[in-house]
């Protein structure tokens, strides 16, 4: 038998929050213990950026390749479309042919989007 409740807690949300707080507690406690037992010594040089030994030149929060941004946008598009496919996947058997036809149109649009992005050269890393 699969029981859906641990102890008497029937609400999975409570358990999810418990798990989240456990994560917070782990980081907080470990940091606290580390601060108690670890040595501390001040040195100006230690606080500098870990790069190559000589002082950093220029801004560290520098400009970066536009490609990263482009792929993030593409991801956003496809991920949202996957999210829309999930409810259909669960009810696929009950929706039958109607659901299948509707989702085929939606899926076609998704594939067209990929083909368009590909043809436009958005998937190339220049």
């Amino acid at each position, binding site marked *: *038998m*699969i*029981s*859906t409740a*641990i*102890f*008497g*807690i029937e609400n*999975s949300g*409570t*358990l*999810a929050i*418990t*798990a*989240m*707080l*456990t*994560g*917070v*507690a782990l*980081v907080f406690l*470990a*940091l606290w*213990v*580390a*601060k108690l*037992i*670890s*040595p*501390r*010594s001040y040195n100006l040089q230690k*606080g*500098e*950026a*870990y*790069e190559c030994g000589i002082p950093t030149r220029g801004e*560290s*929060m520098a400009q*970066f*390749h536009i*490609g*990263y941004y482009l*792929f*993030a946008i*593409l*991801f956003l598009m*496809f*991920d949202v479309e996957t999210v829309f*496919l*999930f409810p259909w*996947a*669960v009810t*696929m*058997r009950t929706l039958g042919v109607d659901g*299948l036809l509707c989702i085929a149109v939606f*899926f076609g649009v998704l594939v067209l989007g990929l083909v368009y992005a*590909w043809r436009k050269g958005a*998937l*190339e*890393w220049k």
Partner: protein
Amino acid sequence: MQALFLDTTGVHTLLTETLNLQPWLAVTIECLLVGVGLLLVYSVLALIYIYYERKICAAFQCRLGPNRVGPWGLLQSIADMFKMLIKEIIHLQHIDRFLFALAPYLVIIASMLAFAVLPWGDGLQIIDFNIGIFFLIAVSSIGVLGILLAGWSSNNKFTLIGSLRSGAQMVSYELSIGLTVLTMVCLAGSMSVSDICAEQSDLWFIFKGHVPALIAFVIYMIAGTAETNRGPFDLPEAESELTAGYHTEYSGIHFGFFYLAEYLNLFVVSGVASLLFLGGWQPLHFPGWDTFNGIMDYCPGTVWFLAKCFALSFVIIWFKWTYPRLRIDQLLSLEWKYLLPINLFNLVLMVIVIVYGLHF
């Protein structure tokens, strides 16, 4: 099969009836117990995983690996954790303090929440939503935020490049993970983790789902390796280019959190793979083979689950020592030009298999 089943209702009756506590107090105590248990399993598993990986890496390179601390070096990772605790946490001048401190919390929370969804056995599961597997994908993507924040707030060129690479990589491969999960959800007809396990009690999905399940499994393993920043996909922390990638500026236990989360994510990825394709905690069953199924049932579900996770993690670690590191353009073209189209095609194939009832 029930050998490792935890009878939690006993504790509940003890708290509410024998001790006669208020309901809110009982729930709080139970939540605390769950939290402590989760914390223990999480950290012990991470330590075991660190030891496991180091031993396997050593075997691949014809070394002995850790063998001094404790018998067969078993206490090595405990010693390492203790060492991290007593290291100084260096106070940097050039960082964004708030975001720098926030990043480890996000990374740990993401892996902890994903970890709590995994089914360890019959009813041995902490969070059991009816959208369990969807919840798992959602929370595991919080980890990307932690990594991006870590790299950005460190105000260092290496960390910035590392975190951007990591962001592009994790975000891209998440798409593949989402689509393979979608393919398997089509077959299972449910997103609840316990339902997916129950569906596989007669035959695992990798056998049930015919060819599409097999393709989905291969894609999942590739995408999962990329998602954990491991193996041939370790460019976010490519040590020969970026010193240590996004966690270069973290010291002591602060770095330890990223280390811990990385190993736990390896476990979570293998856990989800075993849940979706290899039946979760279900023993190996074949319809009609009653004697064989009976023999398989002697082994408890938790042991099955752990064995599958360790075996799949072995494969992921194996990737690391087999393939050279990819370049960022190769990495993205692998995902967007190969895995994604194959994945979309595979989804159609799975739908055809289900509609015509070709699955077993």
